[in-house]
């Protein structure tokens, strides 16, 4: 599956490219950039100290001939002290393991050092310039200009540091030149600030270049780390994906846009009986029956054009050994961000066994229906003829037993019918025969149908109040089945001599039919599974009063098939109200 990942990732979305090229320097970490600057400043120190010592010795030598030899020695001492302190600063910095974090502190000390070094040279200008003759003054001016310029590369990584250093030299020098009383010197004094300004400007520019360089370096470093991490993640997810496909229990095939197999997983090898090498590089038509090749070509072309994924495509596929398997295919075209189709993933689930099981279940249901009903027809029919008295009177004991036999035969038949109903509903094979029905007529019909049942339990069915004449769009036979279930339950569980009341009402556009019994109520523990299959609150009731335990389960499914709902409430003063609601027919 690696080719997939590459296919997607090799093409950058335009937006991402733009974001990357915007200014990569923005991505640098400022703390790291600062550490680099400090490192650069300190790395210049040995060179600077060397140059200072050499220049200092030459200067002291040249200036010693004057009368102020002690002053020269004092200045030389100051310069040596500054160099020494810089040396210590350098060593201190080099030995600080946390120097890249304490950048602020090291920057501050170096700033003070720079100013001190500048001040020592400024002192030389202030003290020695007025006290020497012409040639020495030229020497000194040249020396000071050199020392000042030399600071530019030294402090290139921090222009304010250079400005402090240069100002410490230039200010005293400008002052002595301006106050010397010589017109030429006064003019030079005017030029020095310009020279200072230009130097600081150069240092500023240089500083910018250095900074930009450091930021670029860190941004690229960071980019590199991120790229490596991203690559690691892609490889990991690629491995994970490959593993998903390889270990999946369904056949997974990666095909190119021409329908040529690129990669297959182990399940695909097992399912079709081909080794991966026999499938890869060949058209997927190898596992399509030849008579379906034109269909395959047509479907494939449509899919490549529309890039629409499809699922639940059932196909009979030939195996290498000549047998066939029926597969449920999920086909997914992979499209990259530019909208190009790069591959097609086909996942096939073997449903041969499932289809066979479905066929067997259907056959079983059909057999159950016919083979059980036929003998029951004979049994119940015979008993009915006897019990109806068609054959003349029978002995009282015999009559009692034939009635027991008929009742139980009927129960068995009810159970078979209920099982078939549930099976039909759950397999989605129950077709509703909808018509517009008046609710009051339905209720009256159901009461009439169940009168005999009520009589058996000495319970009467009566409407309470006026029945609504509203209409519903429903299956009459199935709705009567629901009513019969509710009425017979109410009769079974009501005490003898009681009245079961039927109500109709409209609640928010729903017509509700309620059956109110005076039974013992629904036990708490049974409430949640009352509409489940083969559930009865008290299994002894089944034996005493009959019923399959499927009635309410069927009612719930039937009512829901007709876009309604079913439920029950406790009745004030004992008993239960079972109700169902159906949308009122407009």
């Amino acid at each position: 599956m690696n080719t997939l990942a590459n296919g997607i990732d090799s093409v950058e979305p335009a937006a991402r490219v733009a974001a990357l090229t915007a200014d990569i320097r923005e991505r640098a970490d400022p703390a790291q950039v600062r550490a680099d600057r400090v490192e650069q400043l300190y790395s210049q120190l040995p060179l600077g100290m060397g140059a200072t010592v050499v220049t200092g010795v030459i200067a002291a030598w040249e200036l010693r001939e004057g009368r102020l030899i002690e002053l020269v020695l004092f200045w030389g001492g100051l310069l040596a002290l500054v160099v020494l302190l810089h040396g210590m600063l350098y060593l201190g910095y080099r030995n600080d393991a946390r120097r890249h974090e304490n950048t602020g502190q090291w920057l501050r000390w170096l700033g003070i050092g720079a100013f001190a070094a500048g001040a020592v040279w400024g002192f030389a200008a202030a003290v020695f310039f007025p006290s020497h003759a012409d040639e020495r003054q030229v020497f000194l001016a040249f020396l000071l200009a050199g020392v000042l310029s030399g600071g530019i590369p030294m402090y290139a990584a921090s222009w304010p540091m250079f400005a402090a250093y240069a100002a410490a030299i230039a200010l005293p020098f400008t002052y002595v030149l301006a106050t010397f009383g010589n017109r030429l010197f006064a003019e030079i004094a005017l030029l020095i600030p310009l020279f200072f300004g230009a130097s600081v400007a150069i240092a500023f520019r240089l500083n910018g270049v250095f900074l930009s360089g450091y930021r670029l370096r860190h941004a690229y470093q960071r980019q590199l780390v991120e790229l490596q991490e991203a690559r690691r993640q892609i490889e990991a997810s690629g491995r994970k994906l490959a593993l998903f496909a390889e270990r999946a229990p369904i056949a997974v095939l990666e095909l190119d846009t021409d329908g040529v197999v690129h990669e297959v997983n182990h399940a695909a090898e097992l399912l079709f009986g081909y080794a991966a090498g026999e499938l890869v590089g060949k058209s997927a038509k190898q596992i399509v029956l030849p008579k379906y090749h034109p269909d395959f070509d047509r479907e494939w072309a449509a899919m490549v054009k529309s890039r629409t994924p499809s699922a639940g495509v059932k196909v009979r596929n030939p195996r290498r050994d000549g047998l066939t398997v029926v597969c449920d295919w999920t086909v997914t075209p992979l499209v990259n961000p530019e909208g190009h189709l790069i591959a097609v993933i086909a996942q096939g689930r073997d449903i041969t066994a499932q289809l066979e099981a479905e066929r067997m279940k259907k056959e079983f249901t059909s057999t159950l229906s016919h083979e059980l009903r036929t003998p029951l027809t004979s049994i119940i029919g015979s008993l009915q003829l006897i019990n109806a008295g068609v054959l003349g009177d029978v002995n009282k004991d015999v009559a009692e037993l034939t009635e027991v036999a008929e009742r139980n035969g009927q129960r068995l038949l009810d159970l078979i019918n209920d099982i078939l109903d549930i099976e039909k509903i759950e397999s989605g094979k129950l077709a509703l025969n909808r018509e517009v029905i008046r609710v009051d007529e339905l209720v009256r019909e159901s009461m009439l149908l169940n009168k005999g049942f009520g009589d058996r339990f000495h319970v009467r069915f009566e409407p309470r109040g006026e029945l609504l004449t509203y209409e519903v769009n429903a299956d009459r036979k199935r709705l009567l089945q629901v009513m019969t279930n509710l009425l017979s339950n109410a009769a079974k569980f009501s005490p003898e001599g009681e009245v079961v009341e039927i109500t109709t009402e409209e609640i928010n556009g729903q017509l509700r039919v309620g059956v109110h019994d005076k039974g013992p109520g629904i036990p708490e523990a049974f409430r949640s599974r009352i509409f489940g299959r083969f559930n009865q609150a008290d299994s002894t009731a089944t034996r005493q009063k009959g019923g399959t335990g499927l009635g309410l389960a069927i009612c719930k499914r039937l009512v829901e098939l007709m876009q309604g709902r079913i439920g029950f409430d406790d009745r004030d003063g004992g008993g239960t109200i079972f109700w169902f609601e159906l949308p009122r027919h407009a």
Partner: protein
Amino acid sequence: MPDRPLQRISYVEDDEDIQRIVRMSLERVGKMTVDVVSDSTTAIARITSFKPDLVMLDWMMPAMDGPTLFRHMKQNQETSALPVVFITAKATHKDMEELLTLGAAGTISKPFSPKDLPDQLRAIWAKLP
């Protein structure tokens, strides 16, 4: 509605027990005359000679099933006009509809109540043109 009461019935059914119950139901409860045919392949000849008012056919029979026999009857001049009622344990709603559109007079599903069977047949008879 035919101008005479329903009297003579031919019944084609392979199950002997059901034959007996239907015969008893129609003769004792319905006071009708019944000719029961066990072998569907000889049914047309038997029906032709018995001259019933109405024919009842079982759906599932070993030699020739009810719907096939029905189609044969439709092709035979002497039997094509007879009203036919199917009695079956199996038929789905769709199958029933199909038979009715083919011209069956009615359907009765198994298990039927032998007490009510004559009345069910008379109700179908009453609806005939």
